């Protein structure tokens, strides 16, 4: 009963916002912002469990989103938020959880501009729901008596929705050009994928999973992160690039969940890293999504403001895992935990090692993705047209920077000091002895001091931009994102294969996988079953010898 009351208390402001939005769309957005702040304050006054922090993060994203959206999707937005809150506050009641899960995705059905992608999106959604219902039914609708099967089913349901391999279509598909309006794209990418992580964390906190499942989570998550960042890097659709970045972050979060379930000394650090990556993903994406481009059009130009540059740079740094932003601290923490696990686990440590390698590669591609996205937006801006999205970019950028520098000290368990770094500002990790440490505050101070010192000594950079000579006419460069992406596609052809890439990456992935498997099995068949009589006789002889040895032993 207690759960239901607090749930209702959280829902009422948003239900009111829904009705307000029916009357006036802009007022609806304002109401959602106010409600988000209210519920956030209420949540912060309670106990701050990791799940509560994730909820606060979601609320912060909704606040930022509704503050800066200018379309008329507030009705659908409020319904989706109601669903997500229900899902998060469902407590032990698994059926309420599933109800919230359904409601959160329902408004998107009305928002899709074409019928086919909406149906595809919903097919994946319903797959996850089916898995959740299965898991809930086995455990009797109550989170208390979970069995291993139900845990597997529930986890699978949650992870499908986060866009794990091979279900990229969940995130990438609705975010393609022209499918959804910007605010809802932001909602899907930033917060809906977070719900999957929330659900998975809730389940894993209650149930201690066996080792193979942890390793499965690590491998699955890191592989997802790698493939998604690769696809995002070579994509020519700006919004698809950002969607893949979300999937990469989801993969990283799932990997950290896997490390969390391993237990031991890395448990808290993994959880903290999960939180930091979630912050980077949600806040950063919200700011970035309102500024997307597609490959054919150049809508929404960037204006030449220092706030826009700073915000974009910070978001890009966060998405690519660079200090001192939140994404940087999170990536660092995740890699530390993976390598600590590899270090202490003996021969089985090869699994977290592989996970670490894949995550590190994914971060590399994610850096390239983020740099490509933001630099192309800045270089190919068209004139000084009005750009009213710079506040959201600026706020997001500052938010990920500040949370990286401040919040990280709150969520990470071990702090210390080192020579030159003041005590309490160094975030440390341990295996059975000190393993590693970073200090985001230190990095921020050194970077700022260094830059300001350079500026003071050398003054402003004296550059001048000369007008390009283009045959005597005033025609600007017509370099499409496709042209930029294609170079990379050709370079990475051995992974991606040939053919026209830009459409169904999801089907392409399966095609690549099956083609590679077919080639491998062909090779194997030709090598082993090569029609050579002597080879077959040799096989017989070997088999005979092995059986002889086994029976004799």
């Amino acid at each position: 009963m207690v759960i239901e009351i607090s749930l209702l208390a959280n829902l009422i402001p948003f239900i009111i916002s829904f009705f307000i939005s029916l009357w006036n769309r802009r007022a609806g957005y304002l109401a959602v912002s106010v409600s988000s702040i209210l519920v956030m304050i209420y949540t912060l006054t309670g106990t701050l469990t990791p799940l509560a922090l994730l909820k606060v993060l979601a609320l912060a994203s909704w606040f930022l989103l509704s503050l800066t959206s200018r379309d008329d999707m507030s009705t659908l937005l409020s319904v989706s938020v109601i669903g997500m809150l229900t899902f998060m506050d469902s407590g032990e009641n698994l059926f309420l959880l599933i109800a919230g899960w359904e409601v959160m995705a329902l408004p998107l059905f009305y928002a899709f501009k074409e019928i086919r992608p909406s149906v595809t999106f919903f097919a994946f959604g319903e797959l996850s729901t089916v898995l959740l219902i299965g898991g809930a039914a086995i455990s009797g609708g109550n989170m208390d008596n979970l069995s291993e099967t139900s845990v597997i089913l529930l986890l699978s349901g949650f992870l499908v929705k986060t866009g794990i391999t091979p279900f990229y279509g969940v995130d990438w598909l609705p975010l393609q050009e022209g499918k959804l309006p910007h605010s809802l794209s932001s909602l899907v990418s930033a917060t809906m994928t977070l719900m999957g992580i929330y659900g998975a964390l809730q389940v894993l906190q209650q149930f201690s999973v066996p080792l193979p499942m942890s390793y499965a989570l690590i491998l699955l998550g890191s592989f997802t992160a790698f493939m998604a960042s690769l696809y995002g890097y070579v994509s020519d659709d700006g919004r698809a690039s950002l969607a893949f970045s979300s999937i990469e972050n989801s993969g990283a979060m799932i990997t950290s969940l896997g490390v969390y379930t391993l237990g031991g000394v890395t448990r808290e650090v993994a959880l903290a890293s999960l939180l930091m990556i979630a912050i980077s993903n949600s806040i950063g994406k919200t700011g970035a999504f309102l500024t997307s481009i597609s490959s054919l059009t150049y809508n929404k130009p960037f204006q030449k403001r220092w706030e826009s540059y700073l915000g974009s740079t910070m978001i890009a740094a966060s998405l690519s895992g660079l200090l001192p932003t939140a994404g940087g601290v999170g990536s660092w923490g995740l890699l530390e935990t993976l390598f600590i696990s590899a270090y202490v686990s003996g021969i089985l440590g090869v699994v977290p090692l592989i996970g670490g390698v894949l995550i590190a590669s994914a971060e590399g591609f994610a850096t390239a993705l983020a740099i490509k996205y933001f630099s192309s937006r800045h270089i190919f801006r068209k004139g000084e047209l009005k750009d009213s999205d710079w506040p959201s970019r600026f706020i997001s950028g500052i938010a990920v920077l500040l949370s990286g520098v401040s919040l990280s000290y709150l969520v990470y368990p071990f702090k210390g000091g080192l020579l030159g770094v003041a005590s309490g500002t160094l975030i440390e990790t341990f295996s059975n002895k000190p393993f590693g440490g970073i200090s985001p505050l230190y990095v921020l101070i050194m970077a700022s001091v260094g830059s300001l010192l350079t500026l003071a000594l050398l003054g402003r950079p004296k550059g001048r931009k000369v007008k390009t000579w283009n045959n005597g006419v005033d025609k600007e460069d017509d370099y499409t994102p496709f042209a930029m992406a294609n170079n990379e596609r050709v370079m990475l052809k051995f992974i991606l294969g040939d053919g026209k890439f830009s459409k169904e990456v999801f089907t392409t992935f399966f095609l690549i996988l099956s083609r590679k498997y077919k080639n491998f099995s062909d090779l194997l068949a030709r090598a082993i079953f090569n029609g050579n009589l002597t080879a077959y006789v040799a096989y017989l002889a070997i088999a005979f010898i092995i059986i002889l040895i086994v029976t004799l032993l």
Partner: protein
Amino acid sequence: MRFIGKLENLCIYDMGEREDQCQDFSFHAGKSEGYGEFTFVYGPSAGGLTESVQFMIKTSGEQILEIEANPYFKKRKLKFSGRIEDVILTVERINAMFSASHSLSFIIAVERSVDVNVDYEVMMARIIELELERIRNHLHVLHKLAETGALGVASYQLQEMEERTNRLIGEVCGHRYFFSSNWINSVKCNLEKVRLDYLNGFNSFFNDMLENRILIDRFQNNGKIDQDWLIGPAARASGRSYDSRYDSDSLPYKDLGFSPIVERSPDTFGRFLIRGLEILQSIEIIRGALGKAKNVRGGEVKVKGVGSGMSRVESPSGDLVYKVKVDDGFISTSFLPPSKANLSFFLKSVIGTIFTDFPFNWEGFGIWISEIGVEKE
């Protein structure tokens, strides 16, 4: 019956002209899909172009998928009506390289409109002028082709021959581009000074060029165009014996035993071959005509009467048509230049080729933008 072009509202055929529905000139060709393609701007001011013309080429990197030409950057407003003495100054300066063709076509049209009897020797002298211009222009085109193909020795030797021809024209007619050399029933040129000895080795020179693998490779299958509406060397390269010297009675080429040279190679190589062979043919025509032409210098012939007339001559790049209306010394005129049609053909032939092929194809057609972008004042 072959179609030559559209002049204002008239459709010009080799048999005559009539008001009809016929093909207009289109400076756009090809179609592109759009995705992943970008526009490459070439011109109006670029190093590789002699004159100012703009090409907007849609490409996905190397192959030309769609092209649009804008020859009107240097569009000039010229006076095409007034006294004949003034209009001919304009006519000569429409295109200096084809100046003899333009002014002779104009003059012949005027003579026809007022029924002036032209002396046979004057007609022969005119033939010599036209053929000298043809030799010079063909040498120019061959030089440009060799230069683009980076054949240094051939390019410079052709340029040397072109300069020799220019000097010869300057000596014979007083001006290197035949300016003010022509008038009604008179040709102000010293034809006894015509010496073509410097072209004696041209046959073997041209044969050597033909054996060059680089040229063959770059010219063959580059800029293929094989359709019924073609003029000039492009038509004769495709196997069609279209030539104003043959099917127009403006000048008595038939008396010199003229018949058009025809090849079966509708690409840049064919056009290259035709031009080389026509140089040799023009040398023969000049030698033949020199025997029949005298040193003609005419006085001022007053043009009286009212009338209208048309004439067609073969400029080095194709048929050139002039239409005039005379009213007692005052005249209004309009013309159909060969470069308009050639530009349309060029744009059609360039679709599907790659950037490297472009300059060979362009030079091979011998298009002069200055005569396309001309507007009546």
